[in-house]
């Protein structure tokens, strides 16, 4: 059997998709089992785990407008925006159901066995079962991705609702896990769009719709058109708001108005494969673009379409198995984006236009898709600009490292810089300011999401950030206490510490799986505070503690051994308390 090519280097065997789809549907029939598990053939390397969905409103929305919660950091330590320490949000009801699966010891054992047998693990689910599959896959990646000989899992969902917010999507891309997630969506299927509506607007109708999915009678419920209209309206608010953002609107009215309404936090993640209804599959992996397609492809050409389209939007949710069987016979997958071509597909080839047609997208929709794509290109360009500054950064760091070693015959560069009475100190200050300018710019860009999602996972930047933090932060601390900023702003570690150091510290902690600790680069701030508190109770003990920590830090190169120079403030502090000769 053939394979389905998705994007540049992703191929999935047709038989895997078929098997996954049929197992995803089958899982609904055994709700008591939580999950099913099977091989495709006895000889094939894949093992499929499929999860049952639930058709009770409580298992979709846990309360509140959208039923979202902050992710459990212990289970999902990677699902955050690292440098700025923003935690992702997931649907609480789906998360609870996943935890129930995880609580079943058999599940973990069977997954572990598959890993030990060096099999490729495929998680799958239809409808809300797809949401469980997504969470299971993230869990699997968190546990296994750093093991030697790790085999990437695969997550195939069919008509799954949305599970997480945009931070989750960023995190998956940063970890390079995003490509493991492939979501099949029938063009009109209402379910992925339901996540964009606040529960209050659809509450009473939702249970009837879920009942319809459950009993599957001939006729969809009578209020299907109303339901459809509400869901599309909410989707339009979310999509239009996002479109204003990706098109770069800076009008403050946008933020004011959005604070008056409830906008869904959920965003698509991974790759989406839309089934057009005309026998084609269209692949999109840009999350902004997927969101726009989810809205625009549900618009109607004429008012008369409303009732039949609304009914199809429900029926299609149950139609994946048949439909995919049909179009996977000769699978043609087209991709809406050709990101690595330089010429933007503005007029686009006839092919892409056809695909837009198959998805029912208007001119306005294609403008939004262009905007999503342009933004992604812009982010790549921004990354190039920033990469270009590496040379400047390294030059300045080199200068400061020289400065540091030139001060080693005195009391060390911290104390030299703090008293700043030589020409070299002045030059060091200029280098410090230049570096602060560059790094602050990077942090600003991260805040405004102007860099590619992968940026925070790049080893070269994590390394450079760590080097920068270690060598330059002591100078910032020296400057802080030299100008007595602690008398206005308080302890450096309180409000005085610049974001550029917090951020680069977080990068390293995340990359090396370290705990959030007091960083060695802030050692001098601790010394200064102890100096100020000299003589008060407990200072002696604190100095002793700091002494042991310093040894560890010097070992890790977090702190240079120049802190132990005879005349450094640190040694003076110790002598003052009779802790050194």
């Amino acid at each position, binding site marked *: 059997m053939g394979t389905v090519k998705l994007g540049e280097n992703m191929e999935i065997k047709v038989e895997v998709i078929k098997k996954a789809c049929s197992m995803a549907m089958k899982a609904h029939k055994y709700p008591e089992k939580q999950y099913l598990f099977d091989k495709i053939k006895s000889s094939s390397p894949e093992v499929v785990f499929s999860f049952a969905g639930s058709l009770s409103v409580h298992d979709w929305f846990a309360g509140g407008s959208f039923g979202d919660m902050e992710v459990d950091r212990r289970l999902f330590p990677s699902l955050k925006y690292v440098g700025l320490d923003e935690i992702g949000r997931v649907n609480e009801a789906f998360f609870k159901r996943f935890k129930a699966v995880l609580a079943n010891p058999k599940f973990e054992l069977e997954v572990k066995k598959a890993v030990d047998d060096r099999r490729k693990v495929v998680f799958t689910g239809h409808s809300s079962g797809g949401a469980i599959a997504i969470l299971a896959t993230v869990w699997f990646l968190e546990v296994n991705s750093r093991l030697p000989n790790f085999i990437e899992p695969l997550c195939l969902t069919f008509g799954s609702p949305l599970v997480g917010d945009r931070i989750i999507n960023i995190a998956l891309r940063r970890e390079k896990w995003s490509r493991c997630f492939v979501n099949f969506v029938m063009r009109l299927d209402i379910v992925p769009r339901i996540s964009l509506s606040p529960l*209050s607007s659809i509450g009473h109708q939702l249970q009837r719709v879920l009942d319809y999915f459950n009993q599957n009678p001939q006729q969809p419920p009578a209020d299907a058109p109303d339901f459809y*209209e509400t869901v*599309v*309206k909410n989707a*339009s*608010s979310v999509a*239009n708001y996002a*479109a*204003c953002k990706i*098109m*770069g*609107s*800076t*009008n*403050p*009215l*946008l*933020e*004011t*108005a959005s*604070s*008056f*309404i409830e906008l869904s936090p959920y965003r698509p993640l991974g790759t989406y494969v839309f089934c057009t209804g005309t026998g084609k599959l269209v692949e999109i992996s840009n999350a902004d673009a997927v969101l726009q397609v989810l809205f*625009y492809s549900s*618009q*109607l*050409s*004429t*008012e008369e379409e409303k009732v039949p389209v609304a009914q199809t939007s429900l029926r299609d949710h149950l139609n994946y198995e048949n439909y995919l069987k049909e179009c996977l016979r000769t699978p043609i997958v087209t991709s809406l984006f050709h990101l690595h071509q330089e010429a*933007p597909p*503005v007029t686009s080839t006839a092919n892409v236009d056809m695909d837009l047609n198959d998805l*029912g997208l*208007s*001119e306005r929709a294609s*403008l939004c898709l*262009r*905007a999503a794509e*342009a*933004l992604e*290109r*812009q982010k790549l*360009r*921004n990354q190039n*600009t920033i990469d270009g500054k590496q040379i400047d950064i390294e030059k300045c760091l080199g200068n400061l490292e020289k400065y540091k070693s030139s001060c080693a015959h005195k009391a060390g560069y911290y104390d030299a810089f703090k008293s*700043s*009475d030589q020409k070299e100190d*002045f030059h060091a*200050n*200029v280098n410090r*300011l*230049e570096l*602060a*300018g560059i790094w602050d*710019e990077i942090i600003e*860009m991260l805040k405004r999401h*102007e860099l590619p999602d992968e940026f925070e996972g790049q080893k070269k930047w994590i390394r450079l950030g760590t080097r920068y933090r270690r060598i330059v932060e002591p100078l910032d601390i020296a400057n802080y206490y*030299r100008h*007595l900023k602690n*008398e*206005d702003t308080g302890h450096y570690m309180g409000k005085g510490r610049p974001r550029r150091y917090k951020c680069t510290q977080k990068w390293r902690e995340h990359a090396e799986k370290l705990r959030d600790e007091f960083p060695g680069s802030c050692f001098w701030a601790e010394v200064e505070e102890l100096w100020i508190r000299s003589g008060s109770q407990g200072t002696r003990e604190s100095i002793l503690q700091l002494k042991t920590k310093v040894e560890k830090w010097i070992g890790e190169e977090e702190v240079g051994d120049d802190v132990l120079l005879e005349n450094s403030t640190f040694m003076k502090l110790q002598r003052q308390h009779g802790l050194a000769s």
Partner: protein
Amino acid sequence: MDTETSSFETSEMLGTFLASTPLLSESWRLCNLANANSPQSFLVEQVGSIGYVAFSGIQSVSGSDPSFRNLVPLPDVDINGFFYPLHRQSEEEEPVMVQGALLRGFENIYNNTSFQIQMHALIQTSKSIIFTGHSVGGTTASIAALWLLSHLQSNFVNVSVLCITFGSPLLGNESLSRAILRERWGGKFCHVVSKYDIMPRMLFAPMDPIAPHIKPLLQFWHWYMKSPHFGMLAVPLSDEILAQIFQFILVHLRGLVEAGEEAVAGTFRPFGNYIFCSEDGAVCVDNAASVVKMMFLLFTMGSPSCSVEDHLKYGDYVGKISSQFLEKRSFLQGELPESSYEAGVVLALQSLGISCKEPVAGPAMDCLKAARRMGRTPNLNCANLAIKLSKINPYRAEIEWYKAFCDRSDDQMGYYDSFKQRGASKRDSKVNLNRHKLARFWDNVINLFESNQLPHDFHRQKKWVNASQFYKLLVEPLDIAEYYRTGMHRSKGHYIDHGRERRYRIFDRWWNETSGSEKGNKRSKFASLTQDTCFWAKVEEARDLLDALRSTSDPSQLALYWHEIDCFARCAKTLVENKDVSIDVVAKNSSYSLWLRDYNELKSQMELFRPQFLSFVNEEMVP
């Protein structure tokens, strides 16, 4: 980071977004209720977590009221200080002016205790409040929103405010519009204006010539607002008169548009966002000049009768645009332009119901493009300045270094006197060069700001306020030194009154406006920079006084001099005691230390020879 390839027209998308929310249709529903049930008044309703306050479009103001168009200076009439944040203005500006009659209308409503009670309750229960109103009611809603925003600002209460008006007349002048931008309130006003509605355009023209006709027009509108179910009656004006009014307003609007981007003094000016709506969609514009132009262009497409009827059709428009999300709106007028941006502009015109072939299409496109450009240029300039700032920081650092060097130097003069008496050393001339470079940078900043090429709240942004303050603290003493070094005080007079660069006065104002009366903690060491940047100029003046003192014998003159000198001596002492000065002030050979020695010497001589005179001085000194 911005390039043309990644540019898109967002005015239509923003309009579409607003239309997709329930905000417009809910507001309109309540406006209708207020029109029907609460003439001259308002109603309050809570919908979900949002509190709505709708003002009736039927207010006592009428066209025959001579004050209908009268602009009055807000600081003069706002005796209760309801709108205090809007009183502040820069030197050259016209004062903030608003329509006096409507302001009084709002005060009447406010003085009605039921308004205050209901508002108070609403602030307790709602995190967000929307003020809304149709016609004159919308302008009242704007005033109410300005009142609440001012109130919240001084009481530090966190409530979101939004004002949505429908076909409302203008409220105030250019200064009002700028003051609102300065307070960052522009995004809180959303004026819905239909294509042809005459009401929001009316005040662009002088009212006197058409006043007699406006009264029946307002009455006609009022009547319909009260009882729309009777259907549209005939307009009580002849076609001829209507055509006259229409032409009159059109001519004045054209005049304003031709006057260009600058507002004409004494005229009305839009503020906030305008949502222009047609049967085919909505487009949001927030640049005042573009709003005026768009009002004009759309009006030219209308006719006298539809300009009157359109004022009553907001229900239809709002209904249409809020149900548009469901339909796929195709573009049927041929090919869309290649570029994404141009395509977006053409689609925006489609939403305004302008076909590409119509004569206004070209100017309307230009208008949207100009609005976008004017909306973005300030932000781009600001970003560029930030980069330039980080580039000139090393110059500043070099001056800091110079100061530290002088403060440590053996001659113990401090950087002020070292610079004043500098020789021809390389270091000194480098510092002087840096001083010029920094001055050029900051003069350019002020220039850009005053010609509106920076964001309106630029002088409230912490980064810039702090950077300019730091610059002032470090460099102004050098400017003073240069002034007295070159003897400018002899030809022009003393520095503070005659030589101080304008930039420093502006930075003073920026600093005072944002930091307020912040009292710092007690310093344990001398400040790194003297907090009173004119300190050295005061020392110079005090030194002149000492000289004058020595050379006069006129007792009344003497008393005056002593009074001034003692005053300075006291201030300086406090500054030094609080450690609000930098170490260079108290350096052994600084001008201040030298002056203090002279002063004390003279003082002790006085005590020896003129005891009775001194007691007289003391009386003066310690009231």
